[in-house]
């Protein structure tokens, strides 16, 4: 279709192709192969080609010249006739706009996260929504992404965590056998419903907090963006399955207390991503993880055990990312550790006037673990819940140790964690 003749300029023959059929693509393609100021000859058979080509060239900043009468005649009778080429329609001289637009364009990092220099510490605000690795035209609008520093949000294992998260997505409709038969005493069922009501409230917070920060994140940190997005989707499923379990026997949902909401509100109110993810993911969801394992082990029915098991798998990833990115941040700025400690103290002070974990939830957990009103069973359930609290404390201390806190510091800080678990 395109060939180079003996003339000093390249000739393109677009045959019968019209401009309303995409002829500009072939012209543009031919122009990219010549330098600015050089020209191509355009041959074609559409009688309207020259009209459209003229308008297109004007808009694109290329010079358009009609061939003189002699060239036209030669085109029809000479070379063109013998070779079957289309008539000569026009000459197009390449303008500078095509290259001018990309002057000072920047490559926005590299797509492959493992490549050297792929993810920048401080990506430009004008890279905006461009794909990481794209070439970005200079002069674009500045986007206000408040989370645009790698130190603040990155973690070394992020690509792996995202891959795991994407692979571990489960469908609430099929991952749980909602029809599995079981019978519970009505009071035990009510205890399960109360615990589910409490879980939903906590999951609402666990969904909204990362969602809030997700909207502030520079998309250059693609893997973190993807991971947070999946985290939000995880919580959406958790809200669904806990609600579905709570209403499985047709009852109404349980109670929501002021102290529970006050505790969660401090998470939503925290404007700093590092501190919010510390309080939510490392301490809150970490503690929550113990609770889900507890339910998986001690819940009185198979559906509750299954939903707790599935939710725990997801929450473990959320905790892993929280710990990972705080480790990354601390490794670059050790003073972050004292800010984390201060955040726990601040939250403790803010919640010091509120009530303990709501009695309804605590009692429901005991009854749920007991499975009946028999005194011996209640004693056993109570003991299990006491062990749960110890496990929660141990888990928090272990994660704080991973962040570099001494054993004494970890013990002290863990003891200040909200009594509302999350």
């Amino acid at each position, binding site marked *: 279709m395109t060939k180079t003749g003996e003339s000093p300029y390249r000739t393109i023959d677009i045959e019968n192709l019209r401009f*309303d059929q995409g002829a500009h693509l072939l012209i543009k393609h031919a122009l990219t192969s010549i330098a600015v100021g050089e020209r191509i000859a355009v041959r074609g058979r559409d009688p309207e080609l020259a*009209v459209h080509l003229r*308008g297109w060239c*004007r*808009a694109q900043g290329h010079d358009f010249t009609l061939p003189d009468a002699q060239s036209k005649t030669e085109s029809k009778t000479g070379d063109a006739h013998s070779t079957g080429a289309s008539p000569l329609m026009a000459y197009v001289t390449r303008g500078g706009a095509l290259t001018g637009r990309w002057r000072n364009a920047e490559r926005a990092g590299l797509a492959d996260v493992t490549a050297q220099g792929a993810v920048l510490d401080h990506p430009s605000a004008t890279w905006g929504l461009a794909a990481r690795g794209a070439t970005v035209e200079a002069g674009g609008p500045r986007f206000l992404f408040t989370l645009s520093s790698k130190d603040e949000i990155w973690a070394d294992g992020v690509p792996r965590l995202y891959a795991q998260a994407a692979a571990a997505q489960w469908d609430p409709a099929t991952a749980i056998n909602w029809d599995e038969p079981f019978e519970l005493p009505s009071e035990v069922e009510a205890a399960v419903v109360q615990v589910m009501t409490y879980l939903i409230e906590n999951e609402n917070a666990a969904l909204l907090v990362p969602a809030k920060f997700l909207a502030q994140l520079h998309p250059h940190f693609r893997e973190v963006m993807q991971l947070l997005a999946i985290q939000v989707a995880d919580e959406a499923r958790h809200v669904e399955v806990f609600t579905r379990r709570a209403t499985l026997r047709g009852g109404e949902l349980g109670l929501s207390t002021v102290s529970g909401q006050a505790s969660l509100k401090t998470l939503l109110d925290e404007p700093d991503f590092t501190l919010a993810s510390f309080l939510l993911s490392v301490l809150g969801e970490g503690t929550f993880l113990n609770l889900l394992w507890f339910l998986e082990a001690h819940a009185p029915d198979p559906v509750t055990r299954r939903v707790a098991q599935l939710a725990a798998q997801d929450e473990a990833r959320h905790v892993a990312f929280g710990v990972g990115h705080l480790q990354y941040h601390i490794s670059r700025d050790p003073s972050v550790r004292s800010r984390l400690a201060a955040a726990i103290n601040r939250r403790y002070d803010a919640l010091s006037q509120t009530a303990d974990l709501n009695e309804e939830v605590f009692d429901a957990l005991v009854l749920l673990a007991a499975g009946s009103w028999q005194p011996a069973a209640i004693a056993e359930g109570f003991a299990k819940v006491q062990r749960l609290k110890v496990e929660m404390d141990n888990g928090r201390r272990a994660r704080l140790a991973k962040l570099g806190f001494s054993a004494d510091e970890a013990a002290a800080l863990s003891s200040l964690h909200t009594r509302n678990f999350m």
Partner: protein
Amino acid sequence: MVSNNDTLVLGAVAYDPKVVTIWEGFKAYFARHGLKFDFVLYSNYERQVEAHLAGHFHIAWNSPLAWVRAERIARARGQQVEALAMRDTDQNLTSVIVVRDDSSIKTVADLKGKTVAVGAVDSPQATLIPLSHLRARGLVPGVDFEVQNHDVLGGKHGDHIGGEREAARSLMAGRADAACMIDGNLLLFITEGTLPPGATRILAQTDSYDHCNFTVGPSAPRHLVERFHDLLLGMSYEDAEVRPLMDMEGLKEWREGRVEGYRTLERAVDEMEFYDKDGRIAIQNYRY
């Protein structure tokens, strides 16, 4: 009259809301380069030309028709106006007269007794020049064929392409036998879906003509005009700072002004008796 001579004041017609963004952008650009610049907006070119020649501002961003009128008024008063600069996209335009592909109209002569859809009455590209083209080929508008106007935003000299688009729609709806538009707009109307691909045929193409220009009025301070000219022609499409402005204004580079490209329009203005020789509005029922 412009009250001080340290600020260059430009007049422009607000044919679209983007006009404010464009001139605010130019104002900031000129300010960054040390030229005090401001602009005033008019709702139509007629009032702008009159205000310009009355000395209310220095330089007008004029449509080709506004240039013709400004030049005539100035000449009648023994004054001069100058076409200082224009966009690359203002040079060498043509208009086309299109028919439906399945139409029995094969030559311009076949338009006798037919209906030709045009744009606004004051549109050089979609009305005045195409009708002059037909007249030169023996067809007198309104006598040999019916002229179907699509008056969208009178006084804006067809800058708003709504009139051309309405003419194209009229053609496809069968209300007209032919329609007039700029060559580039024919392709635009096809790509945007106003005209189905392959549904039209170009019956005629006018001679080439030029479009807008920066017109310098008699009261403009020369040193400011020269600075304005140099900064304008110094704008580079490679410069990310000004490229968005150039994209919005639809050009890749500014060029020196020239007036040869207005001869076709001047002839059309006389034929239509749009303005008289002294730049007075002569056409009847012109609303703006």
